[in-house]
């Protein structure tokens, strides 16, 4: 009885006090670091305006959208859009293709910038290093339309470089871009060429931030450069790798449609058609925002699950995670 009374009397107090404490702490922080918080403000506003406010529009996934009636005025249709998506063989095929293309690019394309950063880091000559960096960064700034044009020209069955080389070695000429079995290699390969250099910047920055004292003491102990790379550099950038991998997994269902649309053919849909291109073609039949939103909601749910799993794994294995 006494205990209970004591509880009733004492319980609100710590809570209010904690709240007050937190508030005071915040005010203190704000006063002290107001410049930092000021710099944070635009990002917060951006998040609210462009990511949180539009979330209200997600209800479109469950409505028959009419621009004239507006989002609120459009009638509800329940899960009809999801049902019609999952009834389509082609949508299921597109999910499969998206997962395969994403899986391959995580497996093959994700490690390349890391390797590149490690190699660039080992280059001694400053001039050579700068030249290499510039050359590998450049493709990132070329529009995908141009890249697709280059790919088409290189793979041309009559005049393409690749086929000319194949012919010299006695192979048959191949019309690569109409062959479903080649599509993923072409897509991922050219993607690596375009983005690997630019993506290596993050890893290079991580390498730069490693404490030089570690290398100095390793040198004193007589470690070879290979040993320094595998024992110091790599372990030190593992947290960066883990975080980027978690973020990458969250985007597993997002395979950009522009580049695929530029490269694919009806005859390669079998391996090339991904969720975004499927929705794009559906949308062509008359701005079907509701259906596209339903697919977007589906994407987001899958991505959330994947990120949660990846983050948990990352925490367990490397003790770092995004959250």
């Amino acid at each position: 009885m006494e205990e209970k009374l004591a509880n009733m009397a004492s319980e609100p107090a710590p809570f209010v006090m904690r709240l007050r404490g937190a508030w005071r702490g915040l005010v203190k922080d704000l006063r002290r670091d107001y410049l930092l918080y000021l710099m944070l403000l635009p990002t917060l506003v951006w998040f609210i305006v462009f990511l949180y406010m539009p979330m209200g529009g997600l209800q479109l996934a469950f409505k028959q959208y009419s621009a004239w009636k507006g989002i609120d005025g459009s009638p509800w249709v329940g899960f009809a859009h999801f049902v019609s998506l999952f009834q389509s063989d082609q949508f299921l095929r597109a999910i499969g293709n998206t997962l395969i293309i994403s899986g391959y690019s995580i497996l093959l394309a994700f490690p390349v910038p890391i390797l590149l950063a490690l190699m660039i880091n080992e280059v001694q000559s400053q001039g050579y290093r700068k030249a290499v960096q510039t050359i590998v960064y450049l493709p990132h700034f070329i529009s995908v339309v141009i890249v697709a044009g280059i790919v088409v020209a290189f793979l041309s069955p009559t005049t393409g470089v690749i086929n000319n080389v194949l012919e010299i070695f006695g192979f048959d000429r191949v019309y690569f871009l109409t062959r479903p079995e080649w599509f993923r290699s072409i897509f991922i390969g050219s993607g690596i060429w375009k983005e690997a250099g630019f993506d290596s910047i993050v890893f290079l920055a991580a390498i730069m931030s490693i404490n030089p004292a570690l290398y100095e003491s390793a040198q004193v102990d007589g470690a070879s450069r290979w040993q320094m790379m595998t024992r110091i550099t790599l372990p030190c950038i593992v947290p960066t790798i883990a975080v980027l991998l978690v973020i990458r997994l969250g985007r597993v269902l997002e395979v950009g449609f522009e580049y695929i649309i530029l490269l694919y053919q009806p005859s390669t849909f079998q391996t090339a058609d991904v969720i975004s291109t499927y929705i794009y073609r559906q949308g062509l039949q008359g701005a079907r925002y509701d259906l596209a939103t339903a697919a977007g909601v589906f994407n987001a749910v899958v991505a959330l699950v994947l990120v949660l799993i990846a983050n948990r794994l990352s925490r367990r294995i490397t003790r770092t995670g995004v959250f």
Partner: protein
Amino acid sequence: MKKMIVPLLLSALLTVPVTVLAKESTWISDKPLTLKIHLHARDKYVWDENLPMSKELFRLTNLQLIGTANKTATNSQEQFNLMMATGNLPDIVAGDSLKDNFIRYGMEGAFQPLNKLIDQHAPNLKAFFKSHPEVQRAITAPDGNIYFIPYVPDGKVSRGWWIRKDWLDKLGLKEPQNIHELYTVLKAFREKDPNGNGKKDEIPFFDKEPERLYNLVNFWGCRSTGSDAAMDFFVDANGKVRHPFAEPCFKEGIRNLAKWYAEGLIDPEIYTRKNRAREQLFGANQGGMTFDWFASTAGFNDSISKTVRGFKLIPLAPPADINGKRWLENSRAEMRPDGWAMTVTNKNPVETIKLFDFFFSRTGRNLQNFGVEGYSYDMKNGKAVFKDAVLKSSKPVNNQLWEMGALLPIGYWMDYEYERQWTNPAALQGIEMYAKGNWFVPLFYGVNMKKEERAVYDQFWPDIQTYMAEMAQNWVLGTKNVDKTWDEYQARLKSSGFHAVLNAMQAAYDRQYGKR
């Protein structure tokens, strides 16, 4: 001083008509009336009240249209949706590819039905619909109303067959008159080295639009499309809606295409070469025959003959098909899904319908087709004729007109004369031959579906269309054998709702065009 006089004179000339002259006979309103218009077209054009054409329209009708569309936006469809979604409607909405939107939102109450207004206030439109009942049917909504006035192209011809006359001459061949001769000619192009470089690098048939390849099935008596777009539905003689790619005949046609492709008569890279195919293949003296628009294709005679000696490209009458009949699926549509509509919030429906009517009158058509009188054209013997400065400018005539604000996709009636005056003679020769031959089969302008019909169509058709394109390409490339996979293809069409789509379209067709 001299420098000042010219602009002064010009501005005086431009302002005089408004201030000095009394009421024009074409005035729609006694008091100047201002209407707001949302026009965003082809991802870049907007209505601009400061352009010469808009000012001239104001002078002629006493109606001033003020553009409300975002001038910096680059996606017209998006701008339309945005404008609808804000609920803040202007008086008039215009643009390209808006037919389905006009009809859908018209039935939902965003646009005014025009039937009564046309009947009472629009003599030119009324006369036009009387003489072009198929256009009226094509724009009529499922509820029987007309919600928009379309852009009506003029002239008969769109694409045609083109062949290298210099290659024919070199090989001692005549212009092919039927499918058998065509095969011989293409085979000779492939085998007998007409470009004389000792290499077997000739590409007998190619096209910048890969889907146009399927037009070749016409030579085996099969349809490939029903409209000027590729792979579209068609309507048979009994008024039944069908799809060319599902017809038994198509199997026969595509089997032959596959054979031609395997023999190298069709560009091996046809699916990836695309837009610049003509520049590439004519420029390299490798291309022999194509199917394309008249004016632009004829132009290669001037540009390519500078580098390829003796280059001569001529229009070819469609070779007769396997049944001995000459025919052509592609012709110029009599109606485009572009145009304009009047919103429910428009307070001046009578003046607005009179404005719509104006662009079907002689004066209005001249304004929209030729620009401003005295500025870009003159009247000679009662006919509009472009000024020499316009015709001889280094800029194409149509670009000059777009810059003046003419030719925008509002509801108007094109005048073929506008195009004829600046079409080059080689193209004109082909156009006249095709028009005289009159080998065209009627085009199908599509149906306007009810909500339930549209739902069926939207659910099944995109997947089916993808599947058809996928299979057709595989057959041509030889990765799938048409004889072995045809039954499986038909079964798959059946199971993926193809007949439901046909039934939905048929119901819409019967309602709209009348049961036959």
